[in-house]
């Protein structure tokens, strides 16, 4: 029997994986996007929108905090598959016909962002809350990855 020393997970590897996920998303959305014609969306095609994501870890949970200003709750799509949390949705063009847009910096259209979670999570008990334009997703860690105390028995 061998004992393996506990090591903090290497988040730098995980970050680079995340970068690949972004690239994949961008390529996918490039082919999915039907709006080649409008110059505005064409410009955004290459910039895209990757909402800022912060990830926290507690003993029991992984928490993702995502900046999604000005969305409707119904337009936010959240899914979890194979340890990858995907946040997507659509922000629709607002305003009446005939409005001239003098300056457009806000992203309009579909977006998607995938995040590889640092540990396995219990997908049945994920909670999400949306307040002040910030989405907070709480993902409880799977039982087997939670830190546990081990009782030492003296024989």
């Amino acid at each position, binding site marked *: 029997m061998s004992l393996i020393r506990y090591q903090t997970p290497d988040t730098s590897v995980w970050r680079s994986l995340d970068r690949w996920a972004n690239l994949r998303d961008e390529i996918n959305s490039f082919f999915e996007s039907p709006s080649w014609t409008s110059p505005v969306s064409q410009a955004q095609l290459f910039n895209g929108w990757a909402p800022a994501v912060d*990830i926290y870890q507690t003993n029991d949970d992984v928490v993702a905090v995502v900046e999604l*200003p*000005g969305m409707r709750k119904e337009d936010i799509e959240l899914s979890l598959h194979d340890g990858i949390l995907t946040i997507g949705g659509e922000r629709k063009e607002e305003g009446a016909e005939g*409005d001239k*847009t003098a*300056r457009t910096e*806000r992203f309009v259209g579909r977006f998607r962002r995938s995040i590889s979670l640092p540990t396995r999570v219990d997908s049945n008990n994920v909670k999400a809350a949306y307040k002040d*334009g*910030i989405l*907070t997703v709480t993902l409880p860690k799977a039982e087997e990855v939670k830190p546990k105390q081990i009782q030492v028995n003296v024989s």
Partner: protein
Amino acid sequence: METLVRENRRQKGTNGQGATERFVAPVATVSENTDGYTLQVEMPGVNKEGLEMWVENNELTILGRRSLPTVAGTIVHRESRQENFRRTFELDPSIDAGKISATIEQGLVTLVLPKAEQVKPRKITVS
């Protein structure tokens, strides 16, 4: 003049407070119709209490202080900026500064700036 709002990038100290505080410029969209202009500014983490706007010398300044959710535990990946938001726009002379109204919903500030003849300095309250 075509545009409502020309951005004013000169960042001067506001109301003599926190001259050294750093801000980030929020993302904004401006649209125009016959009645006036609509200005939308993205300020995630800002609510009504943290929002402050004023018009001074024909310049509109929007300042948003974030009240971010506090998460216990350690951060393992960060992309968000911690600074508060501030951005200043120069108002088109056609705008009636006294009639500007604002709402904030899910971190998105929407300002309606109706067109009029005269331009007066005035503090804006959040409805």
